[in-house]
């Protein structure tokens, strides 16, 4: 049984090399031809080799719809790169900053105002508290996501995985 498998494997390697060298019209040696007449496995292997390229799509993939979408995206990107949207971006950044930092800081400084008469000190303490809380929140969230495997920091992990994928013995 094992001898048969070894022989088949050898013939399959010849078929593969012939296919790679000459395509489907590869000439077969008489030994290989004899083997193919009696071996179903190798015959199927040979037929499978010839049909491998049929797995690539034959239907039309490019369409006017994709063309239009791409042209729109190209035009959109060109516009976005212009300076027209700059004031809007600054406004959005200021709004975001005030929502996340200035307003909570002001509210927190009111709380600290109970312990100190200096509004500068109260606001400074409020900002410090926000920074610490925000930093802690970010660290905890990052650790939590990393533990669940949703993010990874080390590029080498990615490339190692890619290299492993390439090197795996395809069985």
């Amino acid at each position, binding site marked *: 049984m094992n001898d048969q498998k070894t022989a088949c494997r050898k013939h*399959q390697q010849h078929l*593969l*090399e012939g*296919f*790679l060298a000459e395509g489907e019209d590869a000439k077969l040696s008489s030994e290989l031809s004899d083997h193919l007449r009696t071996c*179903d*496995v190798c015959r*199927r*292997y040979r*037929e*499978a*080799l010839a*049909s*491998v*390229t*049929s*797995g*690539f*799509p034959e*239907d*039309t*993939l*490019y369409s006017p719809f*994709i*063309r239009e*979408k*791409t*042209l729109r*995206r*190209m*035009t959109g*990107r*060109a516009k976005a790169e212009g300076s027209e949207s700059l004031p809007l971006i600054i406004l959005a950044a200021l709004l975001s900053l005030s929502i996340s930092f200035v307003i909570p800081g002001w509210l927190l400084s009111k709380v600290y105002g109970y312990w100190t008469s200096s509004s500068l000190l109260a606001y400074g303490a409020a900002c410090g508290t926000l920074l610490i809380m925000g930093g802690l929140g970010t660290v905890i969230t990052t650790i939590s996501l990393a533990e669940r*495997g*949703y*993010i*990874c920091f080390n590029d080498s992990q*990615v490339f190692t*995985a*890619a290299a*492993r*994928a*390439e090197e*795996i013995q*395809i*069985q």
Partner: protein
Amino acid sequence: MAIGPATDEMQLILELKQGKNPAAGALMDHYGESLMRYLVSILGTREAAEDAFQESWVKVMEKIGSFRGDMNFGPWLFRIARNTAYDSLRMRRRWWPLDRRSQNDPERCVQDVADPVDFGSQVVARQSVRELLGTLPPEFREVLFLRFIQDRSYQEISDFCHVPLGTIKSRLKRGLDHLARNLAEERR
């Protein structure tokens, strides 16, 4: 608008450098189909290929100023598309590690990555080849596509992919062997 001789292409590239959209459309019509097929071969799905296709053309628009007239537009475009596709794969692997796991797990690949372009009316045999193609790493699919669909020589593939000739041959051999053995097994 069809592109005729190379001079027409140069004219379109000049117009593209001036930001004229019709020139982009004409070049897209000329290279669109082969570029989409190439991207599907790397990314495995039509949706991902469409996204990379759009992103590639945006990059073409951004970089066209640096395009020199002494080289061909086609290889330059395909190189941009290739980088875009592999960037997209890296992003997917980084942010969605499940994809990365599926790369090494043929069973998952068949469910998640395979079925590159399912129009719902494919022949069963072709579908199984397609599913098996989906189980291969993208680098293997790409090489198979360049060799058997685009009919490029080993040396051309090696130059294009910036990968040694031996690696190209090894990828082809291993990829084909994997597909043929599994197909033969399925047809038993």
